[in-house]
């Protein structure tokens, strides 16, 4: 059973559709008391960093519960898109601290000639790790991205996938039980399906 956290931001319907398609039980939850019992967590997110953090902070007991699940119980957690950026300490997009579960920060894409921000559309992500999340992921798989900020990790050993958009950035990261993907696996055909399947099997 996968618990998709609903804190008021994110395209939850698509994630649930994809889990249903691959035969994995998933439910949307917003109550920290229920989230306490979660076995696996997906942290989605669309929108601005500070809005998301303040939505999470606003729910009494939410941040404590999430911290406990991530750092004490160490259940598998997957941040998607903005959800991945929330795993970092901070973002150039806002002032609020992030969850800080992975040593990294979130930066704005540098201005680059001819490249539009947001980075929107299908792009290649190349796996560079033997992490279980990368099982059966073929090289040159394509994924759907929509983002104006990217994650810069402190330790390259936490990189799972690389993508090039003017700069080379980490499009998937992982540290122990915590994972993040910058693209939308729920909207990336069989390529994203494989990643969600891998996550479900962790």
């Amino acid at each position, binding site marked *: 059973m996968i618990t998709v956290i609903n804190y008021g931001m994110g*395209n*939850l*319907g*698509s994630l649930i*559709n*994809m889990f*249903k*398609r691959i035969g994995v039980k998933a439910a949307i939850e917003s109550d920290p008391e229920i989230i306490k019992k979660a076995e696996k967590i997906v942290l989605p997110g*669309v*929108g*601005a960093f500070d809005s998301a953090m303040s939505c999470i902070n606003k729910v009494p007991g939410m941040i404590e519960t999430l911290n406990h699940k991530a750092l004490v119980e160490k259940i598998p957690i997957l941040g998607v898109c903005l959800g991945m950026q929330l795993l970092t300490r901070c973002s150039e997009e806002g002032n609020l601290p992030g969850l800080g579960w992975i040593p990294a920060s979130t930066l704005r894409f540098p201005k680059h000639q001819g490249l*539009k921000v*947001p*980075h*929107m*559309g*299908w*792009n290649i992500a190349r796996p560079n790790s033997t992490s279980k999340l990368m099982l059966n992921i073929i090289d040159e798989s394509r994924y*759907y991205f*929509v983002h104006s900020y990217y994650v810069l990790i402190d330790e390259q050993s936490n990189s799972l996938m690389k993508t*090039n*958009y003017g700069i080379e950035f980490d499009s998937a990261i992982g540290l122990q039980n915590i994972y993040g993907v910058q693209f*939308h696996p*729920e*909207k*990336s*055909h*069989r390529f*994203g*399906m494989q990643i969600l399947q891998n996550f479900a099997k962790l």
Partner: protein
Amino acid sequence: MLRTRIIPTLLLRNESLVKTVQFRKFSYVGDPTNTVRIFNELEVDELMILDINATKNNNQPNLKVLKEIANECFMPIAYGGGIRSLNQAKAVFDIGYEKIVINTHSIVNPELIEEIAKHYGSQALIISIDVKKNIFGLKTVRSNGGSKKTNLEPVKWAMEIEKRGGGEILLTSIDNEGTWNGFDLELIKSVTDAVTIPVIAHGGAGCIEHIEQVVKKSNASAVALGSMVVFQKKGKGVLVNFPESSKLEIIK
């Protein structure tokens, strides 16, 4: 690097998919859910569903059909048709759509652009501009599914859309739509020159070369395809299809 997005654009009319020529002459294409399922299997980049009757008949978005469509889509989908408020936009986002498309109601109430962009981000908002040549040869913006004249000039309106927070522009030439004769390269270039947000070229695609032209000559960021992906050939029967990846390589 990103590949150019090629977006099959399906027209919904009373729960069926149809295809038009110059916004008229409806031909039946098929059942929405089955058609979308095929596009999903073909692994298309993105999909756009436009309900061409919603505004005309003052209907709400048909959430039942839209939800059935979303359940078959493992790629980004956009919906347009009859959205006139933030609440209606929310209902569409909630059932699994990434983007919404607004045309008439962005003209009637331009503040709606800001309101939706503020809540959901510009990336979730496509503003559609339908353009038709008048009897003097001047290209002006039309609303209400092409039926209503406005005084808006396409380039100026596009610039205002960008200023108000629209994330993308779907630019349709009514004169070219459904003709298979190629895009209005001049119109599309005039708009891509004036804005920095992505412009999706729509109306007239009949072959890969047309797509190549509009990307290379008119700087379109993405291309919407209608007839090409639902018919075998001009004047021929329905065949849901999508150009092979190898053929699209030239466009990159």
